[in-house]
């Protein structure tokens, strides 16, 4: 497909060059060159990378599995959860990781449905976050169980113990929702990966060729294969969205279906979803910056325009979060219920106030003030820092909801205070290490950039001259049959 554009004069040539620098999809390069760039990044297992993998692996082994094993040996009493705060850092981290996992699907599925072209180079990097975020989240129900080895008691099969899962419990809904989402999002990650695995198969040797060949399933790129794959991706993009929404809604119902004041709120479902999107999109900017800074050739694929687009999304989601937060807060406040007022006072002025104010500042004030600025949005390292700040804010939000609400109950004799213990902090830190460990490994095994999608996008983009102006023009190739 020819996308050549012939500038009429120097000014036009300068303008075209400017636009090429700005937009990846206008900066056409031969596919073979893009393939080389991606494969060079994948095969770059430098000493620094190996060192990072070993350190992350060791930290995961010691801080996550070591601490978890120690806790299993000594008992759940090692954790700081006590009456009345029975849910602590484990549940906070569980909700946090589920939230992180929402970004991949959001960025990939919703932007795909709306045909937002800027999504093309970073959908896979975001989808990987979903899979690894869910892997981290999935550990927490097991950790929180204490006696993890009794997990099979939840399985529905006739047994001598007369134990039967309660299908009406949100905890069991969690199990099904998370597994549906994990399976769905992993398949959604895998399907568009198949053509890139075939590309990797054609360009590698040794064990990599064998593994890529196995994973590419004999993909050849026939008309039939493309048609079925595209239809499959299309169905997934639509179907995974309600699943994504259901997962965090059900996580919110773990709290909201109880009669606990501060939790029993009809707005909890959408409030949790918007929070998940906020932390997830912020995490995408963190991951994109890290990938761009540490992986070869990624500066060509991931550009300021992508951070700019993510920044705009983040701003909208941050404002939406503030809207839901205010809705939840103000209605409870005006309800005038005595215990609720105690809880809200505890949030704003009590011992937990620093965490509550961190939440409001990091989730609303900071992004709300900074993201209006185009220059800020287009500066990758600033977006990286903001991503971390927002995630601190979202962790604080979950901490307040989980431990803060449980600290204040109807009767003062049932008030309490929660302090996380070393074993909990270690396990939570360990799941962060696990996430980074898995991501670092995947970044050197899977093509992080969906090259065929980028090329398809480049085919769709060209220039158009209107009067004396030159503009990018996009053809909707995806809708052709």
């Amino acid at each position, binding site marked *: *497909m*020819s996308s050549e554009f012939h500038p009429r004069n120097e000014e036009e040539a300068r303008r075209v060059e400017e636009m090429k620098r700005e937009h990846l999809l206008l900066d056409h390069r*031969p*596919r*073979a060159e893009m*393939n080389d760039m991606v494969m060079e990044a994948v095969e770059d297992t430098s000493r620094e990378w190996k060192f990072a993998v070993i350190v992350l692996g060791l930290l995961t082994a010691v801080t996550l599995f070591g601490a978890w094993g120690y806790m299993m040996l000594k008992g759940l009493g090692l954790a700081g959860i006590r009456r009345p705060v029975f849910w602590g850092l484990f549940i906070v981290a569980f909700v946090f990781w589920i939230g992180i996992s929402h970004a991949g699907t959001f960025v990939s599925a919703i932007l795909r449905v709306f045909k937002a072209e800027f999504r093309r180079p970073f959908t896979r990097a975001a989808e990987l976050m979903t899979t690894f975020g869910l892997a981290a989240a999935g550990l927490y129900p097991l950790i929180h169980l204490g006696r993890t080895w009794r997990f099979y008691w939840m399985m*529905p099969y*006739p047994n001598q113990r007369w134990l*039967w899962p309660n*299908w*009406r419990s949100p905890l*069991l*809904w969690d199990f*099904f*929702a998370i*597994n*549906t989402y994990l*399976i*769905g999002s992993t*398949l*959604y990650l895998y*399907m568009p990966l*198949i*053509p890139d695995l*075939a*590309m990797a198969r*054609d*360009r590698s040797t040794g064990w990599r060729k064998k593994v890529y060949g196995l994973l590419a*399933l*004999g*993909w*050849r*790129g*026939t*008309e*039939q*294969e*493309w*048609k*079925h*794959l*595209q*239809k*499959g991706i299309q*169905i*997934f993009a639509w*179907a*995974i969205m*309600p*699943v994504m929404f*259901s997962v965090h809604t*059900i996580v919110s119902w773990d709290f909201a279906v109880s009669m606990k004041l501060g939790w029993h709120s009809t707005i909890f479902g959408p409030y949790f979803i918007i929070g998940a999107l906020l932390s997830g999109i912020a995490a995408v900017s963190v991951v994109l910056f890290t990938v761009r800074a540490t992986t070869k050739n990624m500066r060509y694929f991931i550009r300021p325009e992508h951070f700019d687009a993510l920044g705009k999304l983040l701003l909208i989601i941050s404002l939406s979060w503030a809207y839901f937060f205010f809705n939840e807060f103000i209605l409870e406040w005006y309800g005038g219920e005595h215990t609720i007022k105690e809880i809200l006072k505890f949030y704003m002025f009590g011992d937990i106030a620093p965490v509550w104010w961190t939440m409001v500042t990091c989730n609303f004030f900071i992004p709300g003030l900074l993201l209006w600025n185009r220059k800020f949005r287009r500066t990758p390292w600033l977006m990286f820092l903001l991503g971390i700040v927002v995630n601190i804010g979202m962790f604080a939000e979950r901490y307040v909801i989980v431990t803060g609400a449980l600290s204040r109950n109807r009767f003062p004799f049932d008030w309490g205070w929660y302090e996380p213990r070393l074993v909990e902090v270690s396990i939570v830190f360990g799941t962060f290490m696990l996430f980074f460990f898995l991501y670092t490994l995947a970044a050197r095994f899977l093509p992080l950039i969906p090259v*065929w999608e980028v*090329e*398809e996008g480049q*085919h769709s983009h060209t220039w158009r001259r209107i009067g004396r102006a030159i503009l990018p023009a996009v053809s909707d*190739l995806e809708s*052709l*049959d």
Partner: protein
Amino acid sequence: MEGYQGRYEPQMYVAIFDDVERVPDALDALRQVGVTDEFIQVQSGVPYASSILGRPRVFTAVPKYGLVGAFLGFLSGLFFTHGTAALYPLYVGGFPLYSVPPSLVLLFELTMLGLLVATFIGVLVESLLPPVVGKRVYHPAVSDSAIAVFFQTSRTLAAEARKALQAAGAQEVTEVEGSFV
């Protein structure tokens, strides 16, 4: 005698193009030589719609797999929420044995799980992936954005087809081993 038969035995060829703009004309040229669409297969590194290539529309049954999967998922949800309650009745504090509202969550999740898994299976089955037997035609240049036009014809027509494809802009036309599926 053997050589005479060989001339009419169908043989597989591949023509490589570097620009998709040339492919529709090349396919027309092949048809004029006498190679019909069912003996042609186009492979590419990016998806090109049938209307771009001027090829017959490809039908996909993948949505049907999804629907069947969703239905099976719904049935399994029904079994878990209502079937197991009937098989192992457990009356608790006056609560009904069957309760619709809380069942909806599980029904939804399992319906969606069925839909997603069956769609994935549909993509694989319809695309005949992974290949089970035999050697299928493929050209590695496809992953570098070349467009490979595989066609099957007799050796007698091959020379004419080769000439037509080269005139249409094919970079190379070679004989290959293997089958379409």
